[in-house]
């Protein structure tokens, strides 16, 4: 996506066609495209398998909100103490069996 005001461009596209990021499973599917070059259907199937849910549930807020909280991989609402940021990404990397650069940097600093 490129230029255009926030409401008219990125937000409109997110509402019309996008998975919804950490509200649901959009970030998880994005990781598979980025790290394994997976096309959209393959990426969704992979993530759904890892989460133990149907593909259609990946964008169901009622299901994904609980799944994300149960797995502690970052949720859209601010629950104190829930994983966010680099901690959430660490858990996502383990869940999806992928390498995330920022997580690996932290691990190297901690000698893990």
């Amino acid at each position, binding site marked *: *996506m*490129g*230029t*255009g*005001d*926030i*409401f*008219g*461009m*990125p*937000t*409109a*596209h*997110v*509402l*019309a*066609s*996008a*998975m*919804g*990021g*950490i*509200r649901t499973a*959009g*970030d998880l*599917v*994005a*990781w598979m*495209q*980025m*790290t394994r*070059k*997976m*096309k*959209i259907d393959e*990426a969704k199937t992979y993530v759904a398998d890892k989460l133990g849910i149907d*593909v*259609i549930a990946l*964008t*169901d807020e009622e299901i994904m909100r609980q799944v994300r909280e149960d797995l502690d*991989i*970052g949720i*859209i609402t601010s629950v104190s103490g829930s994983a*966010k*940021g*680099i901690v*959430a*990404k660490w858990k*996502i990397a383990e869940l999806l069996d992928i*390498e*995330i*650069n*920022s*997580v*690996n*940097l*932290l691990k190297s600093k901690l000698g893990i």
Partner: protein
Amino acid sequence: MTNKIMCRMGDGERVWLPSEQVKEDILRGTQDAAERAHIPELTSEDCERLFDIIADPSKVVSVEPGEEVIVTDDAASMLFYADQENSGQGIPMSRTQSLLAYERACAADTISIGHTDYSYKQVKPIINYETQEYYNASQMTTAPFFYGSQPNMGLYFQPDGPYPNPAELLPEGKISQALEAQEIALEHLADDLVYIGKRMNAVGCEGFNFDTAASAGDADFKATLKAVSKLKEVAPGMSIEVGMSSEFVMGMHGDMTYNGKRLAGLYPHEQVKVVEEAGADIFGPAINVNTSESIPWNLSRAVTFVKATVAVAEIPVHPNVGMGVCGVPMFEVPPVDAVTRASKSLVQIGKADGL
């Protein structure tokens, strides 16, 4: 207004078109793309589906549940605090605040930052600041986090850069000097892109975005491809996205090749193959909007290119859908009726893996 459909022109003007004209524009648009790029036109079923999307009486349209894709961007979060020239809203927020707002309030699947002056030549002198900013933010962000900017080889030519300007040399008939200037500039640009990429990788950069590649033509594109290839060797953990600037690579040099493939004249379904060869993970075609034609024409044309690109791509395809590209009107406040129709069409008919 019986039998008239609310549409937009490529510049965003609202128009009411007879359904026959909408259908004709859809047909002309796909024919234009097919003829230029030697790719298949949209099928009659595709054209009917596209008409139904455009003619939908709702202001906002969307894909059906289960069809959703993911979004990547070129520093969309910047729009919160940027100036009018960037279609920005001028809200006094830091980059980190805008990133988190984009991630958590706008529910973006991925997020990114970049230098406000969105060119890699401008990034190099402040790379310490950029790596610091990225690293700090990456500790707080959960969604995949890109650093992006534009190769913009034009900035390497005088008066902005050190090299003689081909745009001035060519009209003077100084062809060999113009070619030489581009050949030297592309190596400088490629070196800078690799330097910046390595520095970002060292602070854990999750994704690196080359936006508007080939904006200065085939030499600009070659520099990007060289940089992608090198970065995939030295920074294998960093995902790379290459977004284009146009559906057609301008032959400003004319004799640039990548692994034996001439770059001038490539269309999206050909661009993606060299980008794949270079090692990129995501490809973003850009199909420029003709502001004198209707959105049905522009969108049909864009979907035709995208469908052909997706059909041959081995990597995810994310069409650029900012203002002025891929069927989105060239207007700083893009009408959401047109934006969502572009979104839906590119996903449902074009089979895009993202936007």
